[in-house]
């Protein structure tokens, strides 16, 4: 009979329509709970699947790759505060398919010979295609793919070439966003430290790798770390950061390996943050406009303890998130509309030089 097919088809839409309401009633009043979210995003869901961005955001998986960042030692590291992991070997610049990485190899001012440290490091994020080859082929775990995909800015001509200052992030940030991968890499390196540091320590007759950092007092760590990675603070060039001193007392004698040889990954505030989530959302302070998360302000809320081998839940201060919002530099927390950070020209770190090689053809 003509029309049966259409009615059958309409039955499908009707079912979808009813299902979403039935599903909504089931989760009535618990719309923003973690459990609700987990169910809505699982394969069992029949109701609405949409996420209300930006009020809620779908956290990206660990392997997610976006514009790379450079790994440095933590600012509160007792021995190498803020030191670059990059040795300016140039492999990332060579493997980069669209060639968006520029590196100036560092030279020792006294001997004039190359030293394993980049003088400058630029990534043109307009060109970067987020393929992840630089992170994959870096022999020193010094460049990693970021998870922060909110990079929109108001001026593409001045804001989209990231320099070393803007690219550098502490190693604890990497451990926060990718705990499993970071643990695997640490095991492959043979310890917490950078491979070069391990070699030097061995030569000096020390234990190859130091134990990893711990932050029993997150508030202090936050205070020390926040300006280091926040944008547009040229003072945060790693070498010139003696302000990081208060954190040094925290890092001491905790083991990096469990007795059965597994590396320990410590993340801050796991249990507390998860509880917060469970109780329905964020404290107001954490929701204040922030253009980019500092590693400390990052909200490590994943109770994915099963994935991080033998990670003990470190005691967490519930005030961590609030503190971090306060510790934010004033430049970064503006009005309701968050404009891109103003470019501050630092005489020690001049803006990229635009070089024109040939006169453009067809000038007339």
């Amino acid at each position, binding site marked *: 009979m003509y029309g049966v097919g259409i009615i059958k088809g309409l039955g499908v839409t009707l079912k979808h329509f009813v299902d979403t309401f039935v599903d909504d009633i089931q989760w009535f009043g618990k719309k923003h709970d973690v459990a609700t979210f*987990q169910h809505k995003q699982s394969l069992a869901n029949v109701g609405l699947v949409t996420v209300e961005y930006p009020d809620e955001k779908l956290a990206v998986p660990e392997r997610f790759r976006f514009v790379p960042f450079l790994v440095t030692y933590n600012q509160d590291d007792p021995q190498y505060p803020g030191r670059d992991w990059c040795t300016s070997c140039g492999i990332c610049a060579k493997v980069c398919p669209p060639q968006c990485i520029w590196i100036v190899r560092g030279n020792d001012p006294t001997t004039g010979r190359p030293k394993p440290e980049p003088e400058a490091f630029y990534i043109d994020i307009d060109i970067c295609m987020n393929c992840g080859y630089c992170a994959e082929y870096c022999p020193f775990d010094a460049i990693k793919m970021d998870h922060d995909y909110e990079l929109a800015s108001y001026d593409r001509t001045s804001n989209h070439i990231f320099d070393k200052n803007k690219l550098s992030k502490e190693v604890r940030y990497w451990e926060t966003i990718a705990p499993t991968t970071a643990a695997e890499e640490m095991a492959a390196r043979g310890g917490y430290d950078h491979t070069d540091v391990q070699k030097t320590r061995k030569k000096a007759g020390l234990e190859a790798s130091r134990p990893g950092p711990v932050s029993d007092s997150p508030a202090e760590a936050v205070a020390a770390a926040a300006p280091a990675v926040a944008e547009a603070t040229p003072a945060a060039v790693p070498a010139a950061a003696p302000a990081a001193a208060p954190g040094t007392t925290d890092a001491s004698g905790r083991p990096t390996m469990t007795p059965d040889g597994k590396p320990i990954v410590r993340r801050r505030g796991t249990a507390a943050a998860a509880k917060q989530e469970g109780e329905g959302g964020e404290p107001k302070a954490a929701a204040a406009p922030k253009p980019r*998360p500092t590693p400390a302000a990052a909200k490590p809320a994943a109770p994915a303890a099963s994935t991080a081998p033998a990670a003990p839940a470190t005691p967490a201060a519930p005030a961590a998130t609030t503190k971090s919002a306060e510790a934010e530099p004033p430049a970064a927390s503006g009005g309701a509309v968050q404009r891109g950070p103003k470019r501050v020209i630092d005489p020690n770190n001049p803006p990229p030089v635009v070089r024109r090689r040939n006169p453009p053809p067809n000038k007339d």
Partner: protein
Amino acid sequence: MVYITQTPEQVGAETPQEPQAPDLAKTIADLQTRFGDAVKPDARKGYGGVIVSNDKLVEVATALRDEYGYNYLSSATAVDYLGQGDHMEMVYHAFSVPAGGPGLVFKAQTNRDTPSIPSLTPVFPGADFQEREAYDLYGIQFPGHPDLRRILLWDGFDGHPMRKDWKEAYYEEETKPFDSRWPGGHVFRAEEYNPFGHNVKYPADFTLDDFTTGAAAERDIQSGMSLGVSIEGDPDFPTDRLTINLGPHHPSTHGVFRMLVSLHGETIEDLQPVMGYLHRNHEQIGERNTWFGNMPFTDRLDYISSMGNNLGYALAVEQLLGSQVTVPYRAEVIRVLMTELTRIVNHLWAIGFLLNDLGAFFTPALYAIETREYILDFFEATAGSRMMCNYMRFGGVGKDLPERIHSVANLVNDRFRDMDTMDYLTQLINERLPRMVDQLDQFLTSSEIVISRCEGVGLLPPDMAIAYSAAGPLLRASGVPYDVRKAQPYSIYPELEWDVAVRYNGDIYDRYLIRMDEMRQSLRILKQLLPRLEKTKGESVFGGKSTYSIKAPAGESYGHVENPKGELGFYTVSTGTGNPWRYHVRAPSFINLTPLGEMCKGHKVADVVAILGSIDIVLGETDR
């Protein structure tokens, strides 16, 4: 089960005979005795096939098609051997359809100064667009071609960009990596280095004013329209012939794609696809790039099915590398897993948007997209990106499947998830996807509106489909059971149990149905992969070189896969260096458009959109 199963008898088609694959060695020997000196085997190291002299080319091609069974010209492309003998070459890959078996490669050579090779379009109409592309990018003349114009570039473009002595506006160096990046690192932005307004060159005899006011090229196209087409006009209701543009900016053209249509009333008299708006000279970028640097660029071809593109390119380069790489078994399983999931992703997308084009605005499309998202979540957790996967490597895959699909919340307002990968896959493949396919089936297949819009519209008979080198669902919906996965098997497809889906009517409705069939076949394959994944857990997934500077031995290779949109081929030539000498993409979306004009003739203007939707193109691949 609602959908209708057809047999060849029911639709009155000929029962297909068990086809016999032609014997490649015997064919070559035969050709040599028959044509003498005109056919020589290609003796260069790493090369195969035969070189045919230009004066006998059409004759040899006709014989191959009619007598030897190589009736399907899959790929035709040019190579510029500047400094390697200083000649140009057309390379043709012919296959036997639907019999399968290895393909025959034949080549024709010409000089670089006045390159000219007889056109094969009269023999294989599928060579039409491909020869136009070779003319456009290499400047080779094809005497005998009915309509030799530029196809991807516009008439105000100076030079032929694929020639080895051509330099782009932002030219820096012949090959990557560029020296300026390290250790000097003087950063610059390409557009300041060669600013807007100064980065375009026009041909010597070209004036921009003349082009815009006189629209010389446009006039040429229009004067050629509607020749040789006669439509019975109504003497009582005379209508003017009207030439209109459909696109390039229109949601139903699936991207920036233009159709120049000549109308008689509402009836199509002639239709010419105009493309190239998204052209970025992908192949030139590929030849500047390193071998493995091309992998992420292949993602951007058919961006709906990047995993399949990755696999095609990996196969082509693995052919060149030969025994230097071995793909571990688990890697093969994961490759098939990914490409079959990609097929489902693509077909869900294609069906959703076909229905959009038919007027069912966005409801079916969003149902399809919602389910597709679950597969993309898995891709994201495994490869790091939803669509630009960059997952395959020469000798395996980038990373093993993750233990758990989980995410760490680190942005403000982030919500996290945590699921076991194998549980997720099992549930996805056994429950969620079959449920969705059944639901779509119930929703659409028997709908009278879909049937009345689709049945008998956009007919493509089987002989025409083969002649026009149509591939994938377009070919199989016309009753030709040809699938590269069966015809020239790769990966672990031979050990899996599945059938080539085939439909016999060759209209839009069958092209819709065949995508449903293919999704069901893909699910059949995926179900067989789950135990294999469990069994090989923890095994290696990479058997290639871990170095970043891969040098491929000199030679040529043609790696092709059955991508969701059709046969995707990569023709590569290596001179033994770290960069490809030639990197060509046989793009199914591009070649499937060759018969579009023929399919649309005589239908109403509203059907054009549906016919285009049923071909399922992606402009990233069409324009390259």
